[in-house]
């Protein structure tokens, strides 16, 4: 493989950082019904523990292999699921562009997901890493695949909102 063009990589990284900022803003504002808009139609979205990823086990805490499934989850979270009110903050750092190939970019980024419940302290809900594949559609990036691989193996009760 030809060595990556540093300027192209840097531009892609900036673009991805903007994407992360918008994606997290949408989720952290509680606007979960707009969350599916960040995905391509045939997108794959999975949240799974590192122990599964390392062992090649396919299970997902959340497992969606279409944008329609992502939309169903967004609707359920917003309108039908029973859970205690909470706010989330996503912090995304260490964006590394792995490959730029035409309109497709592969990248990885670290994330920290903070959760605050009613009358509770703010806690680290997850520490993990995004493994992303982006595609460019109509001038903007969309996720073709997002694997959220978390280290926080013992989940504090549940994970309700998207990562």
């Amino acid at each position: 493989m030809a060595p990556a063009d540093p300027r192209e990589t840097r531009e892609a990284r900036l673009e991805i950082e903007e994407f992360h900022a918008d994606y997290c803003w949408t989720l952290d504002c509680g606007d979960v019904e707009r969350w599916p808009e960040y995905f391509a139609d045939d997108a794959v979205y999975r949240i799974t523990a590192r122990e599964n990823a390392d062992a090649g086990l396919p299970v997902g805490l959340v497992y969606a292999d279409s944008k329609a499934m992502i939309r169903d989850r967004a609707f359920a979270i917003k309108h039908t699921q029973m859970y205690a009110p909470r706010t989330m903050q996503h912090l995304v750092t260490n964006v590394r562009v792995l490959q730029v190939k035409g309109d497709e970019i592969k990248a990885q980024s670290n994330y920290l997901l903070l959760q605050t419940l009613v009358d509770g302290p703010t806690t680290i809900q997850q520490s993990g890493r995004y493994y992303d594949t982006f595609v460019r559609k109509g001038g903007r990036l969309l996720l073709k695949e997002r694997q959220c691989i978390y280290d926080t193996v013992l989940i504090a009760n549940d994970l309700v909102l998207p990562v």
Partner: protein
Amino acid sequence: MFSVNTVIHQPGSFAKEQLDDSFDYKWPEGGLQVIPDWVYTSNALYQREIERIFHGRSWNFVALEAEIPQPGDYLRSYVGPTPVVVARDTDGSIHVFENRCAHRGAEFCRVRRGNTKEFVCPYHQWSYDLKGNLQGVPFKRGVKGEGGGMPKDFRNEDHGLLKLNVTTLHGVVFASFSKEVEPIADYLGPEILKDFEVVFKGRKLKILGYYRNELPGNWKLYHENLKDPYHATLLHSFLVTFGLMVAGSKNGMIADAKGRHGTLASAKPDNVAEAVGAVKGEMRAYREDFKLADGRFLQYVREFDSPWSVTMQTIWPNLIVQRELNTLGIRHIVPNGPHSQIMLWTMFGYETDDAEMERHRLRQGNLMGPSGFLGLEDNEAIKFVQEGLRRSPSDKGIVKLGGDRVGSTNSVIDEAAIRGMYQYYRKEMGL
């Protein structure tokens, strides 16, 4: 963090959590139809549960054989809150022993699962074979000219790891601290064995992966939740809206003769709209406007010879067997003090699944687990119950649906299986 996510009134800081053995644990008036809060909050009773139930005459789930298929395969597991190692020996036999070196007590096995020829405690390098027998002690005879070493009468045979009684049934591995516990099939009883066999008998499992979570609620609440079909038809919008379990349809709450195990069973109605329409006025969780954008998710492939599309089995004291349409798994309950439990989920399919069936199971897995549409609602509800019990001076709950009836029922508007469980529990606990 975790169970102390609650800052106001931390676990253990209230009088009814500090009752010791000198407290008069007298069941309140009302008999089977009431449950005193102290069964969920007292640390002294929790200690008694470990001794009499988890370490007593019970079979505890520890592993699936599919997780340790090869000689030398092992994994860390738990019997009650006690760490154990499950290992397959070179002769194919399965052994369960304490994860605690016989020398100074170090929890020697730190890896979640793996393959080995022997276990070596990292502290002083005592080594054990796959059956838990002590193999080697460095400098056993001391150093020449300096003495030291073990006394002459030290025999390795006397210093192996503490070994548990082990049994397997259709690829499921159970262990017990007791040598007197009955054979596993008798332990389950014919009522429970039947649906257990639907999932496991004659089928080779394929492990799809794991979830783990801490649930800040007493371990018994998880059993009760699955012996409580009433909640299923009210709390879970997915069950209600999509007709997966509807009051008035064909349902069953099956208990064994002793009342300790249970199977919550339901058959998806042929005509969902009609079944739901008949009772939707009672169910606030029903959402007429909720139509799935991706309908594949809830398809049911009829793969079992069973009248039930769903069987959720509670096997006393630490196992849940989940067959919810085509999503299959077990939940291993690790009690973690009166206010908390660790739940270890293992999701699986069968070796005979083709790629599409496996994907279908993975998609449907969104129903269960700590982010599942059903799973997360259960975890939230159980947390709410524990906080209510713990933080208020009121001291009991009621289970009056169905009166004093105990055991199996056809109606889902009944708490007979919860009453049956407590009837058994009180006998075991001397309450």
